[in-house]
C-alpha cells in the first residue's frame, strides 16, 4: 500500500522565519503516529501543510493527493480536530450534525449521534452555551462520525479533564482505529499518548530529529543507569545525553554495544517521554 503521508523536503517559511526545515517523513496506513515536539517546533505548520491549509515548499502527498491544490477532495477522506475549540458559537448541535451529514459523503450520522448521546449534551443547544470540554466532545463526535482514512488531531485533549481524556483515547482506539486507518496526533504531553502510539516523529526547530516505530526505538536506544564509580567508563561509550538521579547517573545511547553497556550497570529501554527530553536536550 502507498504511504498515507509522504513528505520530501517539506519546508514552510513565514517571512524570514523557517517554521519547517526540509522535513522528510513517510506514514504508512494503520499507524498511530505521534508528532511530538516543544511549543514552536513546527508541529502545527506540518499539520496545516498536510491538511492543505497552508502553502509550502517541497513535495507532499497525502492520501495520494496534493493537499494545497486538492484540499476539498482530500477532506472527503480525512478529518481534523485542531488545538482550540473552533466550532462556531452560533451553531446548534443538531444542525451541525445535519450540515455535516448533508455535505460529507462519508459521514455516519448514527455513529455521531451515538457518541453525542454518551455526552448527554442536549442537541438543541448552541455551541456557545457549552463549556470548553463539552465543545471539544461535540467536535470529536462530529469528527468520529466521518469515515476517514486519516484522522489528524492537534493537541486534541487540551482543556479536557482526566476522565474525558481517557474516554477520548479509548473511543479513538475502540471505535475508530483499524488497520486501514491512520491517526496523526500532535501533543506535548507525551505520557498521555505514549501507550497508544505505534510510531513517533520528534520535531525540533522545524526539523525531524527522530522518526520510527516504537519497537525500533527499543532496538536503537538504550538507557544505562550507573554508579558514580563507573561513570567514566560509561561516558567513554559515547552517550548522547546524561541525566543525574539521586546517587546515580542515567546515560542515553543510540546504536551502542548492548553487551558492553550491560556490564556497566542497569540497562533499560527508555520510554518515549525520556527519549524525547534526551533527544531534544542532547542529540538534536
Amino acid at each position, binding site marked *: 500500500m502507498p504511504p498515507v503521508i509522504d513528505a520530501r523536503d517539506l519546508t514552510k517559511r513565514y517571512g524570514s522565519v523557517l517554521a519547517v526545515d526540509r522535513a522528510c517523513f513517510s506514514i504508512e496506513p494503520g499507524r498511530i503516529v505521534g508528532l511530538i515536539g516543544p511549543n514552536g517546533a513546527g508541529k502545527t505548520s506540518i499539520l496545516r501543510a498536510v491538511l492543505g491549509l497552508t*502553502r509550502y515548499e517541497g513535495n507532499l502527498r497525502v492520501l495520494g493527493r496534493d493537499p494545497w491544490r486538492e484540499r476539498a*477532495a482530500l477532506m472527503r477522506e480525512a478529518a481534523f480536530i*485542531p488545538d*482550540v475549540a473552533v466550532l462556531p458559537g*452560533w*451553531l446548534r448541535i443538531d*444542525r451541525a450534525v445535519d450540515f455535516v451529514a448533508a455535505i*460529507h459523503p462519508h459521514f455516519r450520522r448514527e455513529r455521531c449521534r451515538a457518541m453525542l448521546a454518551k455526552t448527554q449534551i442536549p442537541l438543541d443547544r448552541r455551541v456557545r452555551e457549552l463549556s470548553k470540554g463539552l465543545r471539544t466532545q461535540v467536535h470529536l463526535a462530529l*469528527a468520529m462520525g466521518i469515515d476517514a482514512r486519516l484522522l489528524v488531531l492537534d493537541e486534541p485533549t487540551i482543556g479536557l479533564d482526566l476522565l474525558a481524556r481517557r474516554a477520548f483515547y479509548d473511543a479513538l482506539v475502540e471505535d475508530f482505529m483499524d488497520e486501514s486507518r491512520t491517526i496523526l496526533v500532535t501533543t506535548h504531553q507525551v505520557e498521555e499518548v505514549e501507550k497508544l502510539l505505534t510510531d513517533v516523529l520528534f520535531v525540533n526547530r522545524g526539523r525531524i530529529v527522530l522518526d520510527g516505530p516504537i519497537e525500533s526505538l527499543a532496538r536503537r536506544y538504550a538507557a544505562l543507569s550507573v554508579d558514580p564509580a563507573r561513570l567514566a567508563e560509561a561516558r567513554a561509550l559515547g552517550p548522547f545525553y546524561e541525566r543525574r538521579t539521586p546517587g546515580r547517573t542515567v546515560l542515553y545511547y543510540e546504536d551502542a554495544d548492548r553487551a558492553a553497556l550491560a556490564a556497566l550497570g542497569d540497562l533499560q529501554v527508555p520510554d518515549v517521554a525520556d527519549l524525547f527530553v534526551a533527544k531534544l536536550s542532547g542529540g538534536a
Partner: protein
Amino acid sequence: MTRFLWLIRRELWEYRAAWILPAVTGVLLVLAASFGHVDVDIAGVRPGPSALGGALLFGFGIVFLFAMLAYSSWYLLDCLNADRRDRSILFWKSLPIGDAQTVLAKLATGLIAIPLVYFAAADVTTLAIAFIVSLRARAWIGTALWHPEQWLQLQALWCYLILTLAIWLLPVAGWLLLVSASVRRATVLWSLLPPVAAVWAERVFLGTNWVGRILVNRLVDGYPATAFHDLSGSLLGALGFPGASRTAVPASVWELLAPARFLAAPATWIGVGAGVVLVGAAIRLRARNVDP
C-alpha cells in the same frame, strides 16, 4: 445543487438577522397601519385611486429594498471575516468544501437569498397592510389598495430588481468579499478607505474625477438609468406631483422595465467583468486565510 443550497442555508443559520430584520420591519409597518392615522394628502394633491395603490405598494417596497441593500452589504463584508475572528474557519476548512464553493455560496446568499427573504417579507407586509387599511380607512383608499393586477406587477418588479441588481452590483459585492477576506478587522473602514483615497488622490494629482464618477454611477444613478425607463419621472407623475409630466405616468410596471437596454449596456458587462475578477481574488485569498 443540494450541497449549494445547504451552504446557503448555513449562512442563514449564522446570519439570523437576515430574516429577523425584515420580519421586525414588517411587523412595525403593520402596527403603524393598524394604529396610525391613515390619510393621503400630498401637497394638496389627491391622486387617482389606482395610482395611489401602486404608490403605496411601491413605497413599502422601497423601504424593504433599502433595508435589504444595507443588510446585504454588511453581510458580504462580514461573511468571510467572522469565521476568521472566532477561528471557526478551521472547522469549515476541515470539511470537503472548496474555497470557490464557499465564496460563491456567500455571494449567492448576499445577492439572491437575502433579497428573496426581504421580497417575501415585503409581500406579506403589504398584503397585511392593504387588508388592515381597507378595513380602517375611507372606502376609496381601501378599494384603491386592492388591485390584483398591481399585486402581480409588484412581484414582477421585485424579481426584475433582484436579478438586475445582482448583475449590476456584482463588482460591489466582489469588492466587499475581497475586503472581508483580506483584512482582520475594521472591515467597514477598509471597504470605504481605498475608494475614498483613490478619488482624493485623483483630484489632487490629476485634477480629474473619473473614479468618483464611476463610483457614483455604479452606486447611485447608473442603475435606475440603465434598468428602467424614466423611473423618477414616472414615480412623481404617478403620485400626481404638479411639476411632473403626466405623460410619463406608466399604465403598468411593464412600461418601466428596460431589460433589453440593461443587457445591452456596456456598463452592465464591464461591471460583471470587474465583479468576476474581484470574486476570483476573494477566492484566492480565502484559500490562504488560515495563515497568520
